């Protein structure tokens, strides 16, 4: 139920936007995330953008987890 789909914003028209995910496009509401910009990767739930995906953290999370494992390995 709390499933949310990552998608890219390809057009914005007032409080509505068009997003694309794996080749599908769909109109979604921006009321809950008015700061959404063209080109943002967003999470869509029940037809609304609920959060903008932080690109830096998205790219860094692997590095963070690798560091976590290395730290664990050093612990012995």
């Amino acid at each position, binding site marked *: *139920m*709390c499933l949310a789909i990552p998608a890219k914003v390809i057009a914005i028209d007032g409080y509505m936007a068009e997003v694309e995910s794996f080749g599908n496009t769909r109109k979604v509401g921006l009321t809950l995330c*008015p700061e959404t910009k063209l080109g943002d990767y967003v999470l869509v739930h029940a037809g609304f953008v609920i959060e903008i995906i932080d690109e830096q953290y998205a790219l860094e999370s692997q590095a963070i*987890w690798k560091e976590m*494992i290395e730290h664990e390995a050093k612990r012995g």
Partner: protein
Amino acid sequence: MKQNAANIYRDPVLGKQLIEAIHKQADEFMQKHGRKLNLMEVCGTHTVSVSKAGLRDVFREQIEFISGPGCPVCVTSHEDIDYMIELAKQPEVILCTFGDMIRVPGSYSSLAEEKANGHDIQVLYSPLEALDIAEANPTKKVIFLAVGFETTTPAIAATIDMAANRAISNYYVYTVHKVCPPVIRLLFNDPKLKIDGLLLPGHVAAIVGRNALEFIADEYKIPSSIAGFEPLDVLAAIFDIIRMINNDEANVTNQYLRVVTEDGNIAAQQMIDTYFEITDSIWRGIGNITDSGLVLKPEFKHYDARNLFDITVTASPKTKGCRCGEVLSGHIKPTDCGHFAKSCTPVSPVGPCMVSYEGTCATYYKYERKV
């Protein structure tokens, strides 16, 4: 960020390393405590993620995964479902719902059966579509079944906001919204459950923020971690939780940094606060939980489908032998229920946990049956 970025959260090499690290920490726990570690996932989507990635099997000897009441369709009370079915039978009504509600059995019928009987019931992906239906059918009463936790409530609130702006006066909602913290408190106070750590729902946290979940560490001293829904997201959170348990730390950590912030989505929280207020709510199989539901504020009662018709539903008899309530409160596993995979299957479900695609029983039916 490339479109295939999701693949970085399914990296098999890093996945294996995380699994090894968890094995090591879990061994340490077992040596210290002489028993398996009890980890609860509160979110139905996590129940699916854990099973789909095969993690229950991978950690079978070390970790007991307990599924909590995290499927909003499953925790909707019998009475509410009967009321929804009665709503569908009223004249001039178009009843709109998310897909997983449609086959949930009420006392005598289901929405799917009523649709087959000719009543106008429409399955929608978003409540936004219900607004368009209302606009296109001004003589009808369009009712949306507002089911869901904090993740979904803002979307429903936003449609009420839009209905006002678009001067749509025939749009209504039947709210059975629930909030998470009271049920989490209830689980921790349950003497039958011994929860060592908690996997926290990523998309509820996206709305409420990490700070709103701090009470878990403050009040109960139990480590927990906010997780995303890809295999590596879940593994990283599991590792973090066991690491904290072994170090005698109790924090609420965030392993879903790309989405969840400290304060959450303020615009969404304001949307909830504008239109809804806290009330007591009945959870299927658990009973009444104080301050665990949301209803429309009195000034927005003209959007409330409860005020439209004079409908009374009588307290319904419990389905014989259905143990969804015990499954939802983490007391038993689906496989402990006599109906499971025999008289209760996704094609002909006895209880709601077998209906919703993220219901615990449906997940076990799909992924956890051994041939």
